[in-house]
């Protein structure tokens, strides 16, 4: 009894210590974002600000391009997700519920594409976009991510578990295949779609690699790209507003995660299957 109490106490203590390390950058970010200037540049360890300095947020939201970065983030992430679903869902439906010539070939392509990390395709896509003159546009940020082998794979798994009779019944009722995809199959696949959406939104909201390559115009910067512009411009003077900006940029995903933890954990864990 005493032994088990002791081991419980030790493991709880260790878990708390680990959690403290995990929280450290979050807490320090919050602390700096709310600290008045003189307290940021003091050399004493001081976790809590003496008063809440909202001005850091005012500066970040009015004197910098942070709102624009957020807007760009919404456009790019929303655009990517919409096109991914538009292309992936009909294809996965066909792969799962229809028999056609080339089906094995298409599914083989999907599996092979799962093996290719995005980084590998970056140079040729950059070359192509440069030739086409579409670098530095929303299109350049969205287009390369439209094909999603992972999405097709996920939706196909889901669709192949649905009974074929369901779709036969819809056909008897005179629905076209396109209508079946969007009015019957897709609504049924909402759990899979949610998991996929969470995965896709998180991946592209947080992505730095491609925005760094495809855009040089600060007005097209997505949130991670934008915060680096901000950091590189300020010369170590504006730490408060910079931390406020970092907080604002990571807040949407963190809040969404806190509100829908189970869905988030599932969505991101499923993403681990992606190559």
């Amino acid at each position, binding site marked *: 009894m005493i032994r088990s109490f002791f081991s419980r106490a030790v493991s709880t203590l260790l878990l708390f210590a680990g959690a403290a390390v995990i929280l450290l950058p979050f807490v320090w*970010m919050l602390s700096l974002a709310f600290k008045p200037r003189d307290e940021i540049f003091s050399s004493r360890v001081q976790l809590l600000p003496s008063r809440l300095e909202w001005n850091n947020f005012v500066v970040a939201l009015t004197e910098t391009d942070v709102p624009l970065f957020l807007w760009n983030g919404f456009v790019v992430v929303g655009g990517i997700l919409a096109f991914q679903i538009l292309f992936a869902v009909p*294809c996965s439906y066909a792969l799962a519920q229809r028999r056609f010539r080339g089906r094995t070939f298409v599914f083989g392509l999907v599996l092979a*594409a799962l093996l290719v990390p995005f*980084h590998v*395709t970056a*140079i040729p896509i*950059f070359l192509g976009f440069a030739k086409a003159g579409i670098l530095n546009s929303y299109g350049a940020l969205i287009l390369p991510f439209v094909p999603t*082998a992972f999405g097709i794979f996920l939706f196909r798994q889901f669709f192949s578990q649905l009974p074929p009779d369901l779709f036969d019944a819809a056909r008897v009722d005179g629905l076209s295949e396109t209508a079946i995809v969007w009015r019957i199959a897709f609504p049924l696949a909402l759990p899979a779609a949610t998991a996929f959406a969470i995965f896709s939104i998180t991946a592209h909201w*947080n992505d730095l690699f491609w925005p760094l390559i495809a855009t040089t115009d600060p007005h097209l910067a997505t949130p991670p790209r934008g915060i680096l512009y901000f950091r590189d411009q300020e010369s170590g003077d504006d730490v408060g507003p910079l*931390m406020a900006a970092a907080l604002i940029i990571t807040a949407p995903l963190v809040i969404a995660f806190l509100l829908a933890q189970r869905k988030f954990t599932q969505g991101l864990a499923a993403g681990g299957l992606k190559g």
Partner: protein
Amino acid sequence: MRRLSIARREALTDLWLAGPATTVMLLFVFVPVVIVAVLSFTDYQFGAGSFAWIGLDNYARLFGSTLGQRAIANTLTYVAIVIPLSVGFGLAVALGLHRMMAWAPWLSHTLRTIYFLPVAATLVAMSVAWQMVLHPSLGVVNQTLASLGGTPQDWLSDRGLVLYTLAAIGIWQTVGYNMVLFLAGLVAIPPELYDAADVDGAGHGWSRFSTVTWPMLGPTTLFVLVVTATNAFRVFETVATLTRGGPAFASDTLVYALYREGFVYFKAGYASAITMVFFAFLLVLTLAQFRIVEKRVHYR
């Protein structure tokens, strides 16, 4: 449409459903892979009008030059640090939280949320926060060190330290992810196995772990190892945000080198060779992952 035969019509429907996705996949995945493979044997530079075939020169340069070797060595070191620690801590946290579920479910749940937070947060923004945490004079780490009588360190600009600092941040970011996978594995272990172990006198502590928990977690562990490795190989955000591969290339990694050579110096040919080497590493890992997933007992 009425004049088309049924077979024709069906074929057109299939084309309409599967064609667009297949086309964009060919256009943005397979054609680029072929091009990057071809480019890696040339001296092509972005914007140049022509190029020459130079055989394996780009690869020779990557494996033969100090810089190329350093990028590869740094990446492998980074991966070798992150894998055992991230997987080990992930497992330890999962075991602790799983046990805590029995007597303090609420606390266990809260801690799980905290550990998962870095996975959902924007890594670039958090790297900027880490930069302040590790700031030589204003950062909380050095301030604490100083007040305890230790020596403050230049965590991000000391050549000997920087790679370890980045690896620590990498571990910080991925522990929660591994924890979730391990928790799923732990929940799926049938309680009867523990009862049986109890009867056999292996019901406590280490023997319980070594006879039941660890063997049952085998497939999960393998999966977690490979996923952690694949992600560690792609390390880019922290490098680009915190060190740009510096100081003096001490934290240069494959993906960062590919970015710098390709998109800062515009040496498309050489960057393509780096890409291919990176691709080869990942291909081996991902194929291993596929085999594991295939064989894995599905817990979820």
